[in-house]
């Protein structure tokens, strides 16, 4: 009988039920969309922040003090310590290897350059040796492509990057303009006293960084090592890693932590935790966090996340109130029906239970529809803004269904309580 009453109520007034369900599913769609986007935005934005480039720098531990002004190290080549290039594949074996987006070793030196066909030596040109697009072998047999183009994405290149290990180079825009160099030209680099012109490099591209590198020649790491007479060595390693903004716990010194805390700290991708595991993996290095990048990133990530949570909260509140109002209206309107049931001997409890069941049924239908609609919207938003859709999460579905049930029940609870006090007779008389 109970089920029949419920089924009857749906069949008899499909339009009314449809409207309530529509209000519910729209409200829940808002919640789902805002919720999914908020959950996802941290990861997506962290990825976007990698356009700021490296956030970690690795230097030799026993290094002498760099004399760097405007991005140029004035130390002579024979001063200071170096790191072995053979250790580099280990970077992708650290605990947080999936969070390492890119890395590039750098070896800088001062050299003399001779554009060919030869006219005159250009004295003291900065030469930066690095990887452009280097395939690093991984322990699992695959390769990882990385290089300066990924750690410094703001470098704009006209033409193409050099091929690693080839006798090619790219030159800074300012240097190219001053010396009238074009793509396809040949240039020779030399250090110290030379008796003959070394074999030239082919210019494959002209890049502009907006920084002091615009005056430099960027060559494959192997070429720079040869010029510096330091085979297999590099001086600085830039690492770009996906991180979680540091909180108070993240800023603690790992040396002061107990075992459990240390484990928890290492298992969170804080920038300092990644730096710690890099240092463990690469012996004899000093891993520093580039604070300018890391902290600015942390602050903005936190703000945006908080902002989106607030939008979610506001959406939730509005949806809840509107849906509550809708279900309240649907109960108020059925006063005469309630009165009839009571006149036929139903207790307030039975009536309330019947109506609550109806509302819950509606909540699940509306909530489910809303979840589907909201997920679609969140996908569209994610696709449009970040080019990647947030993953549908069951957590969101659970939250939405529970919320829908709570909201409809709360919305109908007030009028139901009043309905419990109805005297059937006056209502049935139409008073």
């Amino acid at each position, binding site marked *: 009988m109970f089920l029949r009453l419920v089924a009857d109520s749906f069949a008899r007034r499909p339009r*009314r039920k449809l*409207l*309530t369900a529509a*209000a519910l599913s*729209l*409200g829940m769609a*808002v919640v789902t*969309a*805002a919720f999914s986007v908020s959950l996802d*935005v941290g990861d997506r*934005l962290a990825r*976007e922040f990698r*356009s*700021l480039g490296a956030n970690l*720098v690795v230097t030799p531990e026993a290094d*002498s*003090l*760099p*004399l*760097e002004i*405007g991005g140029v190290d*004035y130390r002579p080549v024979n001063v200071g310590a170096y790191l072995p290039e053979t250790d580099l594949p280990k970077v992708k074996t650290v605990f947080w290897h999936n969070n390492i987006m890119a890395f590039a070793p750098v070896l800088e030196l*001062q050299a003399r350059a001779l554009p060919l066909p030869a006219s005159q030596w250009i004295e*003291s040109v*900065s030469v930066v040796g690095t990887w452009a697009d280097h395939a690093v072998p991984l322990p699992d047999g695959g390769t990882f492509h990385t290089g300066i183009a990924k750690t410094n*994405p*703001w470098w704009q290149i006209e033409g193409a990057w050099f091929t690693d290990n080839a006798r090619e180079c790219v030159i800074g825009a300012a240097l190219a303009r001053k010396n009238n160099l074009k793509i396809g030209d040949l240039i020779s680099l030399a250090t110290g006293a030379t008796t003959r012109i070394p074999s030239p490099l082919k210019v494959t591209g002209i890049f502009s960084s*907006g*920084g002091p590198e615009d*005056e430099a020649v960027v060559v494959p790491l192997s070429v720079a090592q040869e010029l510096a007479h330091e085979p297999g060595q590099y001086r600085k390693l830039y690492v770009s890693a996906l991180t979680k903004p540091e909180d108070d716990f993240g800023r603690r010194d790992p040396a002061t932590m107990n075992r459990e805390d240390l484990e928890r700290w290492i298992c969170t991708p804080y920038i300092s935790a990644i730096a710690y595991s890099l240092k463990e993996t690469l012996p004899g290095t000093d891993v520093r966090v*580039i*604070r*300018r990048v890391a*902290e*600015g990133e942390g*602050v903005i990530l936190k*703000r*945006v996340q908080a*902002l989106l949570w*607030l*939008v979610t909260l*506001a*959406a939730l*509140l*509005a*949806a809840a*109130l*509107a849906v*509550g*109002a*809708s279900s*309240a*209206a*649907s109960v108020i309107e059925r006063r005469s029906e309630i009165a009839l049931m009571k006149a036929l001997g139903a207790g307030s409890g039975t009536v309330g239970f019947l109506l609550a069941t109806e509302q819950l049924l509606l909540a699940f239908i509306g909530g489910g529809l809303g979840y589907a609609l909201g997920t679609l*919207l969140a996908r569209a*938003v994610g696709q*449009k*803004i*970040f080019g990647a859709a947030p993953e549908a999460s069951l957590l969101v579905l659970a939250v939405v269904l529970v919320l829908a049930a709570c909201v409809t029940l709360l919305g109908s609870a007030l*009028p139901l309580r009043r309905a419990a006090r109805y005297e059937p007779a006056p209502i049935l008389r139409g008073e």
Partner: protein
Amino acid sequence: MAGQISQNRQMFWRITRRMLGAHRGRLFVVLLALGAGAAVTAALLNLRIDARRRLTSEFRAFGPNVLVLPKNVSATNGETLPEAIAKAVPAEASNGHVSKVAVLYVVASISTTRPGKSISAVIAGTSPLAFLRIVGSVKGEHPSVPSATGRECVVGENAAHQLSSEKNPELELDKAELTLTSGARRETCEVASFRQLGGPEDDRIEIGLRAAQRLADLPGRISVLELIVPGTPSEIQTYIANLQRTLPDAEVRPVRQFTEGEAKIYTKISGLLTVTVAVVLLLTSLCVMAAMTNVAMERKNDVGLMKAIGGATRRVVRLFLAEAAVLGLAGGLLGAAAGILLSIWLGKQVFGVAAEPRFIVYPVAVVLTVLVAILSAFPLRRLASVRPASVFRGEA
């Protein structure tokens, strides 16, 4: 005729008033739904406008984003700029205050009072010195008043490690006196704080600009002027272009790592906010509309009665639209006010500074609410087909 019209109008408003007053519970429910919609609209619009400005100021956490350099600077020539150039840089950008820091780099040899320890390092003479505090974490006490004499200095972490033989150089070097020598010129300074930024700053020692100028024997000269320009990426571009025109003898250059990264991130965040807010507003208004229609549908009896006593369908519909408009106005006025207050509080929670209420938001939210209310009363037009007799018999 005129009398009849005014009487009609009186009757019209009287019925509207009665309709509103007749059912308190319903009135409350409707106002709740409309008010909630208005509140969210107002709060989100206000936050959206404010977030733009706040985000661009958050980007300043990255430090200087524009550099003024001498023309033709290269590795060999030690070109410098006159210090007076700082005065030629406008202090106000379109979107706030521009902070300026003048820097002069000198390579000098540094020794502590203990004999034997001496290293070469880059000395950065900066003015004002206290600027460091904005850029990142500065450990230890900071000179509160930037000193013109340059007695204080800030030692980078790496430089400190090189200067000290101890494991924790901060203990040994704090308040220690350093002697800086370049050629025949000497300066002394007292270590006031240490810093670790992860950049080349860690290898340097920072002293007052005047002391650095004496050390380099370059009075009134600077190597670079670092600017922190607030604003959106396009505003910064305009500022740079204007500045380059005012300073033809220098090179004005954006720190592209930050200006470009910021531009990308700003577009993403801004787009994300716009789309999310738009979606939320659209769905919220649809949801409010559905709820309102639900409420309006129960008015069949009223419509039946009005038609039975001779109300033309158009007039009946007009009555209901008037009622909806009044409700929308009331809900909008209350809700939007609540929403603006809400956004002020929310702004405080997110950005630590209360969001400035934009008063344009208020009328926009109210008008939107009235529109939603009127639109949601429109399904009542279907009631034109209501046949009074069948309504009263309790059918349909």
